[in-house]
């Protein structure tokens, strides 16, 4: 039995497809089962391992963190009982009026503004370039992927060396080098971290785009070129919409990675940078929650961070959904 071929396959999450989909499967089930378990209850079975995993591994720690943020809590040895008085929003008040915490959120904001557009643009551009059958394609793909694979600890040492005041970069720049040098300069510290993370994570996002590009049907490019579109035009009208899903994922992951930044400020700028110019919320959470034994305020910072990221992600989804209506 054949079905008609369509020029541009309709993705499953298109509103029209969602409305029409699933209609065939529910016809011979009783309405009660459908009402209780949904149209394809087999889905519960298939998703059960993942759901159980989340419930068992993450629900307790995350729930516990929220609980800690509303009490005056510290960790104790088993069998030691201490009162954990409920303090309402006190921890949140402390955290949101602490200039160090607010500064750390500001630093993350700077990071995101620098890192996210650069990441999306560079990774898409490079993925498109690396998708063509060019000379040395494997070498190039490996070259851009390698930083992602190397452990941060080791590669940070190389960067510290390259960007130190007597390092290679300053030697090349000569009189243009900033003083104090890059990583100890309160203006440049956070942008340097943004640059480092962009460089390091690019391989991951290129990979996502490469995979997505495989699914853009060649017929679209052919019909675009038949219609007289040049390389840039076909990029804008075929490639960019075609990888819309991947862009949504790349944006989400870049934002989440940026918001949860910890290792790089910790290693690259020695635990917070010159005069605290590159602290991040998660760094403060680590200092307060784990080093100083104050998990309640650390959890308050964490909850605020998660809420902010969810808001940004929601806005991001709204914008990307709206753009292709």
């Amino acid at each position, binding site marked *: 039995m*054949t*079905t008609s071929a369509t020029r541009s*396959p309709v*993705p*499953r999450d298109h509103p029209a497809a969602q409305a029409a989909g699933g209609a065939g499967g529910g016809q011979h089930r009783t309405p009660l089962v459908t009402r209780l378990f949904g149209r394809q*209850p*087999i*889905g519960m079975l*298939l*998703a059960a*391992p*993942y*759901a159980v*995993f*989340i419930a068992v*591994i*993450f629900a*307790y*720690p995350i729930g516990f*963190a929220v609980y800690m943020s509303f009490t005056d809590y510290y960790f104790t040895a088993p069998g030691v009982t201490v009162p954990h008085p409920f303090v309402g929003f006190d921890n949140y008040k402390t955290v949101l009026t602490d200039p160090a915490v607010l500064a750390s959120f500001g630093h993350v904001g700077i990071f995101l503004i620098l890192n996210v557009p650069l990441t999306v643009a560079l990774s898409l551009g*490079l993925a498109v370039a690396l*998708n*063509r*059958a*060019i*000379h040395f394609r494997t070498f*190039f793909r*490996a*070259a*851009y992927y*390698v930083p992602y694979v*190397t*452990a941060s*600890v080791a*590669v940070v040492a*190389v*960067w510290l060396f390259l960007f130190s005041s007597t390092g*290679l970069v300053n*030697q090349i720049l000569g009189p243009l080098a900033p003083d104090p040098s890059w990583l100890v300069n309160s203006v440049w510290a956070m942008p340097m971290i943004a640059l480092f993370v962009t460089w390091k994570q690019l391989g*991951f996002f290129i*990979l*996502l785009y490469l*995979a997505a590009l*495989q*699914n*853009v049907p*060649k017929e679209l*490019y052919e019909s675009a070129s038949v219609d007289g579109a*040049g*390389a840039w035009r076909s990029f804008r009208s075929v490639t960019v919409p075609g990888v819309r*899903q*991947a862009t*949504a994922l790349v944006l989400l*992951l870049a934002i989440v990675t940026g*918001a*949860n930044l910890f290792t790089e400020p910790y290693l690259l700028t020695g635990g917070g940078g010159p005069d605290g110019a590159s602290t991040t919320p*998660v760094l403060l959470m680590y200092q307060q929650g*784990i080093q100083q034994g104050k998990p309640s305020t*650390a959890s308050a910072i964490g909850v605020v961070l998660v809420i902010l990221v*969810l808001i940004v992600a929601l806005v991001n989804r709204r914008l990307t959904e709206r753009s292709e209506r």
Partner: protein
Amino acid sequence: MTAPRIQAQPGDEQDDDRSVPVVVATVTQGSRWRRWLVMGALFTGAVVFLFPFYYMIVASLQRSPNTSVGGAFPSLGNLTLDNYAQINASLNLWQSLLNSGIFTGGVLLGTLVFGVLGGYALAMLHFRGRGVLFSAMLLVLVVPFQLSMIPLYVLIARDYGLGDTYLGMILPFAINSTAVFIFRQYFLQLPSELFDAARIDGAGELRTLWSIALPLVRPALLTAVLLTFIGPWNEFLWPFLITKQQAKQPLAVSLANYISTVQASTVNPYGAILAGAVVLAVPAVALFLLFQRHFVSTDLGSGVKG
């Protein structure tokens, strides 16, 4: 001159790693100049990207540390494999690699088996709790590890009693949520005609999953493997927390331990550290090289043609 027209020829986009130009194109002068520009930009970018890694390798091969700029291009007399030998002598390299392999393998298994099922269910099937599960998945992606670290450790080490076990190491990473997200997106992108055809033919959901969805998911599997591999392979903090027996520690942890002790005893401690990092990176790069050749455009349109 008219605008450049590039006409794709049969045999385009073939999987071919040999440096044979495959794109046969009728091009004008402008287009060739642009191609060289692109190649030049790519090459410069690749050099910039690779330089720190190159420097890591060079520094790890040095006998005595040369931290000047000239050290980037070392003389042959200063090169030695001693740092690698030193690592092998100080920590049980093969045991650590094995532990890393078990840890990463367990995570890959969990993600590929249960993650695919979960992603498929989230994408294609309507069931009660689908929205909650999706929100939970997003939440897991967003929450930083430091927030959940100690309760998670208490949960796994004390409540489940899994300290110093492989299962305890694997458990928090067992199903990578990013991979589930990718699977879900991938299934959403598949043309609905494939599934409608199966449904019209009377196939049940499991049958559809087995005969239609799974055979098509290979590209997403490859992506997921490459992305999921790195997390557990380079992970230091969690295995460090959960294992104290050196026989169970993966390579990332052994190397970190080694870093904290190596300062005193070697001539070039920095070089030894970098040698360790290179050893850690090589399998991941090798895996990538092996898999990336499969990133070829599959012609999905042919799946719906008669």
